[in-house]
């Protein structure tokens, strides 16, 4: 996983409720393994007693060969973090090298995390590992939107290994690995280029067989998924709205 040419850019965010009922506390830190490291800067847009709203702003070109982005998020008991992104991310041609993008989020009891992800585009020649590890305590709620695009318009897909693990109170709720590249994508994605997802955890919606894009997870929570040739065909605006509504 670690190569000698890897440049690690680590971003830590921690949101805690103020015990006296004041504005929630937001702590963040960025560290780069060397001065040329690409980093993701957490910009606080708003924070009050209830929640913090943070934009994850890339500093420098992302995502290039050797980039290793690590985003480590903690939302303490009863606190809320809403993450947004100013734009999508393109993983560029890495010419035989690799990059990774790892996110780990831990939520305390009754904490909330929403993340309005923007498209992640894997250009031809890219080789990216992307991990999402979520650990939720009882009562915690998560809504995450994700759009994965294999190849820019008219381009062959790049390589991408997406690994997702979700545990609620230490028990696995969703574990998935998607090894996507030009060879596997025709089968795993049925020849589609775009995979949109909305993940809702810690909140339970009534069963509704009329919603074909929704997967009700066995241990609770929901995953909406849609495949498409273009991003707008696969978009899930209703699912994202329903997920945010369920989070409250």
């Amino acid at each position, binding site marked *: 996983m670690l190569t000698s040419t890897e440049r690690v850019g680590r971003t830590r965010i921690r949101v805690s409720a103020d015990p006296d009922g004041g504005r929630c506390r937001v702590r963040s830190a960025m560290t780069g393994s060397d001065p040329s490291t690409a980093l993701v800067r957490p910009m606080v847009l708003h924070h009050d007693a209830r929640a913090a709203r943070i934009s994850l702003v890339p500093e420098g070109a992302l995502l290039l060969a050797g980039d290793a982005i690590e985003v480590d998020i903690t939302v303490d008991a009863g606190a809320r973090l809403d993450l947004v992104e100013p734009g999508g991310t393109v993983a560029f041609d890495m010419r035989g090298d690799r990059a990774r993008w790892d996110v780990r989020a831990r939520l305390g009891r009754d904490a909330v995390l929403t993340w309005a992800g923007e498209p992640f585009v894997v250009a031809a020649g890219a080789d990216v590992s992307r991990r999402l590890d979520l650990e939720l305590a009882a009562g915690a709620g998560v809504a995450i939107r994700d759009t994965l695009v294999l190849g820019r318009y008219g381009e062959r897909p790049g390589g991408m290994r997406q*690994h997702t693990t*979700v545990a609620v109170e230490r*028990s*696995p*709720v*969703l*574990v*998935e*690995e*998607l*090894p996507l590249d030009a060879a*596997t994508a*025709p*089968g*795993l*994605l*049925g020849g*589609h280029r775009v*995979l949109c997802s909305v993940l809702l955890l810690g909140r339970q919606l009534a069963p509704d*067989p009329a919603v*074909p894009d929704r*997967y*009700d*997870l*066995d*241990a609770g929570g929901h*995953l909406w*998924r849609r*495949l498409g040739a273009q991003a707008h065909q696969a978009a899930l605006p209703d699912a994202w709205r329903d997920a945010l509504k369920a989070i409250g």
Partner: protein
Amino acid sequence: MHHELVLMLLADARLPVGGHTQSGTVEAALAHGLTAHDVPAYLRTRLRSVTLVEAGSAVVARHRAACGGDLADVDVAWAARTPSSALRQASRGQGRTLRRLAGLLWPEALAPLHDLLAPSRATVLGAVAAHLGLPAGSLARLVGYDDVQTVCAAALKLAPLDPAVATGWVAAALPEIAALAAEVADLTSPGEIPAVGCPQIEVWAQAHAVTNRRLFRA
């Protein structure tokens, strides 16, 4: 009992576990644009995703059952790797019929399952394999082979094909089945079970579960 004979018994389509009701989602795939020509590639995709998960789950269940352990967390690990409720239901339906058969023939095999309301087929198969002394590699090959035969037999009922062509697809998939078994045969803990998903098969499986135009349950 010799494990080769056990393997033949469990792999035989005449085993009364309702195998003829399953298509391995190929019915939905053919209804949504897959052609008979695409079936060999479809088999490969399954062997590297949903069937790999099933084989891994069965192998870990077998190991746990053979050690006298609990299968509940194996079943939870399988369910976390199976986001489609349609695929979970199909597997649990097959688990139920296998459990019924095993309850009549080898009731002691079911002891590790007694806490589980609706275990997956992989979990039940693992418990049966442990009881009958089927080695892990053989069990994994059984899961892979059964999946390939299920898809090919269903394709023969759905598309005008020469049975020899479909059997040729099965024969051509044997090295992939062997590779799948090699990948999972040594697994012992639920966290190690492969988790490769197939979003396209999940979409088809969900659509198939709510249609009334079908020959196969799943």
